[in-house]
């Protein structure tokens, strides 16, 4: 793309053609306030807050969010005309605003407050009564809507339409009476609904899980990685007094583009559960760590194939590595089953990156309902299709949400026969001459497909059409566990003893067991006579996950592990000692360096990033008009 030279408020700059004025201004630190504009949504020019003055152009203020830069353009954000236009728009936005900022969850991180402070009139000229709506309205059990605070920027409805391909959210009535509503007043069902909370520039859409929990300035936060599935979205976790009180999205264009699913956003309250296990228990009585670890070691040592181990899906690479050491030594022969993993075999090498989906011309999705398996990849595929014109082929016996696009080609296979359909695909019209990169995403049909056969068929198809494969591992760190060699899928029946790490297997603890060691963060049925070790949660533990595409990402927990809780790697070292294996690590970094040197797929663990990511720059706005 050719570059364009322009001037904004005296700053000369060069940006790629097609850049919008509002984006160009950011590169020189000039804030043009916006409500309706969002860099991940198509511009609409509805709120009119971004009015600026530029020449050549008509002698009127124009919206910076819909106007691309042009060669030689001179933009003035501070001309009297532009400054007054923006202040007038803010005054209009406030004319019916309830100004209930003291009790509004958005207060303190609210663009309406900040923009009014930086761009609005210093005194209120608003007279007369304000418009009232019934409030708050529950949009679902997770989201509340306050129509009086709404500035009708339509970010939420546009997100639903453009990004999520859902028809649950709309506008009703018109004029000043317009309001956002769920379709036919039904609760929102989409797994992507929570993103509208982050998108909302005012306090109109708030999380009912967090509502009235804390003020934004009363929390500390940490940019970390979601532990709910294999995608590994960046999230911001917010803590207040040792409690995890909120999870929001954190933009990482390589993976999530700033969207997270509702599982990642709202499923966190178990961290704060008052019944959390915090001390070890032996036969229902509180115990010391040493006694409990010895009891576990005694129960699982030398059992061979009579020992079963259930691994959690969010086991870190470090924990997996230490556990591998035990599995190679005292626990040799044990049956291991990883919770929530797929039947997809370990990858032979590097696989397709999530980001590469953006440029795909044809995307083939086999034996996976992306929406539930890898939610944010589902959104990435939707973007490639609706915004970038990719063609989509779905091979699945069931309907999936990607079918909503009129151009989606859905091939309905018999359950278990996906491989046969994939083998026919090379001659499909869309794949004969795809005109660009082809992406082949395949899951395991939740156990219905023969994975060796399907993986081979997808590999062959990729070779025939020159495409790239993306095996859709589901478990949070399934790919890491596979790389370390503990991500196994053994049957746990007929074992005498079980080490149950994390939540119990979906099928329940096997009936045959006589000894149960549980390492978990919550008490559960079946732990009554077990040796119980308290576990740290995703909001506390250190370590790394390897996501579905093979990227190793470091956790930055917002909450410290507090005694008597211990880090997972510490417990494994102690358990190793009790079992007669020396695992002597002074901290987590030596473990990471050792993994990096031994396992090529995890080599990037050698460079741990800074624990404090760069702060988001605060743009300083102009003085009052």
């Amino acid at each position, binding site marked *: 793309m050719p570059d364009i030279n322009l001037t904004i408020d005296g700053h000369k700059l060069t940006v790629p053609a097609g850049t919008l004025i509002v984006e160009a201004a950011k590169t020189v630190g000039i804030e043009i306030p916006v409500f309706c504009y969002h860099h991940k949504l198509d*511009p*609409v*020019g*509805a*709120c*009119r*807050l971004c*009015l600026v003055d530029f020449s050549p152009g*008509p002698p*009127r*203020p*124009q*919206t910076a969010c*819909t106007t691309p830069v042009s060669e030689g353009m001179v933009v003035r954000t501070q001309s009297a005309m532009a400054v007054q*236009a923006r202040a*007038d*728009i803010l*005054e*209009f*936005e406030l*004319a*019916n605003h309830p100004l209930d900022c003291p009790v509004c969850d958005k207060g303190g991180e609210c663009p309406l407050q900040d923009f009014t402070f930086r761009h609005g009139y210093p005194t209120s*000229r608003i*007279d*007369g*009564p304000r*418009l009232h709506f019934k409030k708050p309205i529950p949009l679902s059990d997770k989201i509340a809507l306050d129509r009086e605070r709404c*500035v*009708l920027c*339509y970010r939420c409805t546009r997100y639903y339409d453009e990004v999520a391909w859902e028809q649950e959210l*709309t*506008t009703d*009535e*018109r*004029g*000043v*009476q*317009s309001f956002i509503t769920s379709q036919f007043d039904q609760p929102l069902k989409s797994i992507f609904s929570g993103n509208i909370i982050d998108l909302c520039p005012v306090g109109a859409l708030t999380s009912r899980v967090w509502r009235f929990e804390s003020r934004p300035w009363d929390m500390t936060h940490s940019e970390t990685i979601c532990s709910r599935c294999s995608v590994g979205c960046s999230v911001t976790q917010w803590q207040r007094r040792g409690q995890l009180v909120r999870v929001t999205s954190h933009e990482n264009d390589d993976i999530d583009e700033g969207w997270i699913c509702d599982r990642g956003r709202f499923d966190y309250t178990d961290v704060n559960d008052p019944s959390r296990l915090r001390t070890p228990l032996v036969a229902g009585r509180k115990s010391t760590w040493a006694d409990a670890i010895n009891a576990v070691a005694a129960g699982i040592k030398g059992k061979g194939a009579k020992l079963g181990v259930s691994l959690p899906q969010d086991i870190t690479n470090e924990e997996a590595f230490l556990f591998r050491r035990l599995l190679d030594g005292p626990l040799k022969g044990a049956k291991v089953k990883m919770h929530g993993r797929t039947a997809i075999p370990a990858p032979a090498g590097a696989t397709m990156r999530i980001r590469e989906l953006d440029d795909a011309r044809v995307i083939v999705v086999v034996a996976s309902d992306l929406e539930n398996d890898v939610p944010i990849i589902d959104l990435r595929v939707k973007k490639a299709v609706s915004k970038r014109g990719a063609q989509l082929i779905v091979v699945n016996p069931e309907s999936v949400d990607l079918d909503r696009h009129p151009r989606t080609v859905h091939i309905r296979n018999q359950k278990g026969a996906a491989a046969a359909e994939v083998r026919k695909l090379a001659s499909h019209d869309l794949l004969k001459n795809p005109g660009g990169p082809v992406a082949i995403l395949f899951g395991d049909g939740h156990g219905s497909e023969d994975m060796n056969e399907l993986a081979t068929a997808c590999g062959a198809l990729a070779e025939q059409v020159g495409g790239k494969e993306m095996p859709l591992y589901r478990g949070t760190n399934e790919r890491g566990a596979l790389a370390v060699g503990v991500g196994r899928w053994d049957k746990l029946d007929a074992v005498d003893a079980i080490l149950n790490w994390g939540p119990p297997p979906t099928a329940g603890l096997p009936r045959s067991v006589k000894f149960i060691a549980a390492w978990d963060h919550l008490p559960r049925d079946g732990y009554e006579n077990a040796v119980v070790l308290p576990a740290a949660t995703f909001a506390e533990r250190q370590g790394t996950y390897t996501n579905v595409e093979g990227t190793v990402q470091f956790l930055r927990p917002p909450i410290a592990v507090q005694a008597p809780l211990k880090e997972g790697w510490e417990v494994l070292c102690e358990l190793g000692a009790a079992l007669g294996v020396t695992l002597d690590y002074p901290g987590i970094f030596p473990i990471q360096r050792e993994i990096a040197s031994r396992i090529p797929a995890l080599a990037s663990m050698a460079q741990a990033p800074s624990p404090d990511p760069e702060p988001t720059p605060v743009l300083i706005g102009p003085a009052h008009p």
Partner: protein
Amino acid sequence: MPELRGSFGDAPNHLLTRWFGTPDLHRLGVYESKAGGYSALRKALLEMAPADITSEVKTSGLRGRGGAGFATGTKWSFINRDAPGPKYVVINADESEPGTSKDRYILENSPHLLVEGILIAAYAVGANQAWVYIRGEYDEPYRMLSEAIEEARAKGYLGPKPMGKDYPLDIRLYRGHGAYICGEETALLESLEGKRAQPRSRPPFPAVKGAWGRPTLLNNVETLATVPWIINNGGAAYAKFGTDKSPGTRLLSVSGNVRKPGVYEVELGQSFRHVIMELAGGVTEGRSLKVFWPGGSSAPVLPASMLDTKTDMEALAAARSMGGSGGVIVMDDSHCIVRAAHRLLKFYAHESCGKCTPCRVGGDWAVRTYDRILANEGSQTELDTLQRVSDGLQNGRCLCGLGDSAGWVIDSTLRHFREEYEDHALRHECNVGGPPAASGRHLPRDRDEAASA
């Protein structure tokens, strides 16, 4: 509806309404035999290249009659005729501007005139499909236009091979549901696509990305109904009428306190004095003209002192108003301008689609301010608020013209009738003698009665 048939205005300069009033003109046979109908289509399809049709329209200088007055030929030339894929012609027959009834007048007199114009335009810009977005309340025009299309289809004037030419043409109708905003071209397109009628941000303009994302020509009924005359007689002949920059004639719908309200075809450049005082017979007996809207309720008002303003677009722009939709609304001195503005603002606030901030909030804020003034609770603050809201609505602040129109109502009435506003807001009195007269009091039952009166 006999009173709606006929050609009125300054004979012999009737280009558009020349044959209006001919019995059964809406029948294809009569339209062809009496009015020489479809000769322009025949000429365009069989004798002219599409580019020549467009250049003929350019030569005529015809400007859009919907409100903005954009040059029609130029608009046609924006459509890339050779671009692959479907293109559309969409006809704005929503006619929702208060005080305007000229499109209905054409549809009820000579629906074939529009059909012919549409087909010529579609051929010129390379479209095969035309859509007429017709106002929902227009039952009779809808029926007549449907019948005309069916007649033309039966005769082979539209269909797979119109007039034997291998160029498929079709027209379909879509009925609106009564929202003012649907007269705005991009909101009309949204509505046509089955979406919530809200204007789109431009660019892209409809000529690039219109109906269903395809290049689309959007024209008003009157604009297209003028095209057959231009094709038959040549663009240069058309350009001889009217003024240099606003050539031709246009239909003015005169309503309000006049003796002979109606639709008049007037050569552009005539004065409003001629239109209101002579053609429409002047204001009611014993009353004097107070104010008029020269181009529908959206055009800024002109006081009686500006009655000599000419009807062409340049003269109106110089008078800080506009030609708009040609709806001339006349008020006599029995009306209070503050009440009139209040009523209009209620309309604009009610019809605001709610998409952009200034129009959504500003209209309502103005209405509430008028409410206070008319309840004798006004002060200088209220007058200031009105001016401020008006400024906040105009000059590119809004997404489409609706907000500007609301602002112009406030601005132009304040500018010309400051005294009256001050009577209300500062002195809490009205010196105009009560509420506006009940509508219909001045209206004759039909045109014959008006003529004999």
